[in-house]
């Protein structure tokens, strides 16, 4: 191999350049070797890197490049063939790898770029999601605010608190500058500023309600943006800044009357309040949809809360009123009760205390009447008797009336002779009528039953009262009394619109008409007749001296008997007719012998024992003075009970004869004795046998003493046996003083006493 002369050996004059090239090559090689190391290091660190193969290639490429440059270092000097071949190999490999890499990169770089775009896309998406997240969070927070606000509003029932809280919370939630509530005035023509957020005491501006903007807000249930120049929105003093956006929403004021069942409230009749919300003036904020929705929801909630508060106020007021009324009513009731109690006490006292002396007076006067008297004395005694009778009647009437009005009076029902009642009335009225030369006629219809069931005493009292009035107020002419059974057509009289008779088999309606030819009554005065104490003052002839109670009592008795009473008159001087309809029962058994009751007003004068009875018994049910005339027989074997009964009767003032056996009893009993008390549960006394024999002995009913059984047996069989045997009464032992007293009273009045078992 010839050494080439063109190659300068060792370092030629440009060995500086060579030196620099040498150094550069060295550093290049270094760099080329370190880059793959770095790559490997970082790739190993990262978890994901899809292109390892490319990296390997790239690494190889770089390594080879580095190697090439490194080997280049040796070629600066004279180098052997080996170095040259190594260099060549390295270059060839490098070339190969780099070509392959270049080819590979053509495929790979677009992929890498798309990764980048995807990354960008994802980043954008993430940013968007973040934004939306922020929005949702805001909304959720707003929702929370609304819930809290609603909770606050609904947790109180005080109207002011509700509204204040609403404004405060809204202001806070939405960061408002001003929030105000306009309420309609009472007239409904104006809106008045009632509450604001910032101002403590709004001065009460009013705005007429018929403003187009306001109407627009009221007509929709959405929150409406309104102009800040609108009168309702001028809440802040005008400043230099641009006012923020204003929104108004209607708040329905609901009333209970607005709601109907199964119906939605009528919107047209509702009143609304106006809520105005203003955003801060110098911010660029705008009303967002979700904020408007919040405002609407709040407005609805406020409406409901307000209506609840209103309802509650109403009911509290009603309850207070009721309580007051209750207290007042209670007081009134207690006062009334006290008054009634006082009156009853008074009546009770009067009942007893006033009757006792009356009895004494009347009894003794009648007795006096029976004695030898000079004509003047007789006249005086008669006057005394008449006056005291009147007084006694008056007392009874007043007492009866009070009891009638109390509702405590009950009729004494019994079977009685209807004809006898009328006859008695006639007998009683005849003397007075004949004195006044009035002719009295009695006309009883043939279909009128002889016996009826009812309160004989009171019926008699009523008829007597009416007939008495007729006689009293007639100076001349005639009185006619007609009685018949009322048929249905006569019952339905136009004069008695309230009277609704009911016909039944057991009852009949007795109609009595008393017609007189007296002074008559002014038709205008007729309604007053039956009111108590209402004296007819207009005519001087009505100077009756009556208490004015008679007709009132009659009316009440008649009402008790489910009847009706009224007076017809054509005018003054034309007489008048009194018509009376009462309901009486049909007696079950009309046979005379079965009737335990006798007419109370004995039409015979055979009760010789006490001549005053006729007068007395009409007026006085309790006859204490009468016991003195009672001669009783007590038949009992038990010594103790005999003694006790005797003691009782003696204490009451009766005369007592004690007998110890049935024979003795039969022997001693006579018409002088009024009552025979028999202890029937004593063996050895055949009380039923005695009863029969006494019945046989005294055939005339009025002569026979009353037979009363004393027993300790409380079963109905005993009672029925007694009744069947013909006894007049039954008393349960032990007998107290009061019981004996009432027994005697009842015996005298009704001639019968069967104690209720």
């Amino acid at each position: 191999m010839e050494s080439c002369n063109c190659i300068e050996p060792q370092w030629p004059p440009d060995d500086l350049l060579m030196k620099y090239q040498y150094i550069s090559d060295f550093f290049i090689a270094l760099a080329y070797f370190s880059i793959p190391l770095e790559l490997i290091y970082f790739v190993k660190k990262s978890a994901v890197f899809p292109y390892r193969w490319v990296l390997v290639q790239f690494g190889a490429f770089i390594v080879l490049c580095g190697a090439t440059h490194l080997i280049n270092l040796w070629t600066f000097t004279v180098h052997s063939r080996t170095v040259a071949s190594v260099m060549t190999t390295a270059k060839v490999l490098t070339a190969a790898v780099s070509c392959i890499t270049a080819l590979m990169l053509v495929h790979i770089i677009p992929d890498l770029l798309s990764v980048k775009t995807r990354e960008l896309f994802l980043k954008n998406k993430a940013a968007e999601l973040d934004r939306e997240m922020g929005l949702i969070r805001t909304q959720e927070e707003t929702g929370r605010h609304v819930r809290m606000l609603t909770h606050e509003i609904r947790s109180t029932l005080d109207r002011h608190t509700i509204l204040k809280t609403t404004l405060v919370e809204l202001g806070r939630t939405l960061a408002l500058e001003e929030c105000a509530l306009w309420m309609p005035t009472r007239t409904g023509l104006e809106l008045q500023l009632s509450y604001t957020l910032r101002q403590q005491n709004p001065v009460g501006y009013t705005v007429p309600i018929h403003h187009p903007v306001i109407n627009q807000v009221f007509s929709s249930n959405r929150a409406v943006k309104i102009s800040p120049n609108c009168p309702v929105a001028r809440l802040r003093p005008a400043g230099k800044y641009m006012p923020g956006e204003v929104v108004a929403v209607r708040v329905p004021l609901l009333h209970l009357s607005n709601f109907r069942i199964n119906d939605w409230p009528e919107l047209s009749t509702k009143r609304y309040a106006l809520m105005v919300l203003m955003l801060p003036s110098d911010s660029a904020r705008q009303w967002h949809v979700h904020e408007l929705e919040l405002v609407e929801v709040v407005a609805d909630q406020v409406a409901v809360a307000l209506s609840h508060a209103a309802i509650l106020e109403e009911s509290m007021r009603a309850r207070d009123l009721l309580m007051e009324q209750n207290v007042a009513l209670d007081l009134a009731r207690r006062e009334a009760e006290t008054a009634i109690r006082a009156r009853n006490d008074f009546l009770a006292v009067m009942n007893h205390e006033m009757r006792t002396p009356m009895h004494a007076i009347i009894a003794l006067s009648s007795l006096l009447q029976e004695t030898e008297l000079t004509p003047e004395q007789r006249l005086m005694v008669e006057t005394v008797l008449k006056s005291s009778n009147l007084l006694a009647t008056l007392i009874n009437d007043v007492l009866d009336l009070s009891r009638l009005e109390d509702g405590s009076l009950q009729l004494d029902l019994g079977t009685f002779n209807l004809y006898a009642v009328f006859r008695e009335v006639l007998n009683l009225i005849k003397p007075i009528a004949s004195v006044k030369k009035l002719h009295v006629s009695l006309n009883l219809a043939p279909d009128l039953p002889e016996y009826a069931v009812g309160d004989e005493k009171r019926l008699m009292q009523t008829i007597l009262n009416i007939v008495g009035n007729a006689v009293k107020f007639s100076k001349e002419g005639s009185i006619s009394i007609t009685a018949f059974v009322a048929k249905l057509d006569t019952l339905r009289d136009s004069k008695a619109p309230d009277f609704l008779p009911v016909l039944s088999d057991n009852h009949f309606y007795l109609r009595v008409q008393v017609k007189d030819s007296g002074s008559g009554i002014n038709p205008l005065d007729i309604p007053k007749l039956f009111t108590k104490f209402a004296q007819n003052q207009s005519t001087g002839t009505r100077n009756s001296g009556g208490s004015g109670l008679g007709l009132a009592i009659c009316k009440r008795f008649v009402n008790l008997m489910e009847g009706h009473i009224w007076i017809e008159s054509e005018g003054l001087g034309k007489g008048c007719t009194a018509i009376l309809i009462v309901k009486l029962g049909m007696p079950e058994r009309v046979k005379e012998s079965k009737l335990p009751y006798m007419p109370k007003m004995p039409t015979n004068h055979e009760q010789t024992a006490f001549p005053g009875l006729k007068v007395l018994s009409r007026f006085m049910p309790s006859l204490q003075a009468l016991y003195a005339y009672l001669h009783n027989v007590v038949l009992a074997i038990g010594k103790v009970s005999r003694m006790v009964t005797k003691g009782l009767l003696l204490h009451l003032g009766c005369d007592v004869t004690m007998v110890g056996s049935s024979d003795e009893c039969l022997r001693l009993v006579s018409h002088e004795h009024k009552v025979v008390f028999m202890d029937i549960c004593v063996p050895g006394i055949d009380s039923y046998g005695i009863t029969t024999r006494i019945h046989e002995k005294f055939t005339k009913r009025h002569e026979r003493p009353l037979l009363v059984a004393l027993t300790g047996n409380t079963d109905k069989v005993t009672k029925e046996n007694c009744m069947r045997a013909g006894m007049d009464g039954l008393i349960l032992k032990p007998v107290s003083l009061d019981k004996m007293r009432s027994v005697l009273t009842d015996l005298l009045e009704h001639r019968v006493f069967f104690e209720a078992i």
Partner: protein
Amino acid sequence: MDVVNQLQRQFIDYSASLHREGFLDDQFTQLQKLQDDNSPDFVVEVASLFFEDCEKLINNMARALEQQQGVDFKQVDASVHQLKGSSSSIGAMRVKDVCIAFRSFCEAQNREGCLRCLQQVTHEYSLLKNKLQTLFRLQQQILAAGGSIPVVE
């Protein structure tokens, strides 16, 4: 006067206790009401009659029940009935109650029961007798001291 007041108070207390313990009932009060100026010893008389009656009836009953050959329950029943009547007339509540039980035993013809009741009746009767005698003694003491018998409602 003090003595009288004391005696009267004693009388009232004793009376009330008799009522409370059931020895006497309302009927006795009724009897006391019957006592007045016409019959000042009414209650004492009735009580003595009652004691006589009681003893007689109790003896009757004892004799009837002692019969070894067949007790005549009808007779016993009649006596008990009479005793019941008397005791209720005077207001001897406890005696009367025993009589009621006695009668049911008679109806059932239960000799043992009857004997037991008879014992009870005797016991109650003697108790009552003692109590009433004490009461009457108190009454006499009050009257002797110049006071009046207080009315016990």
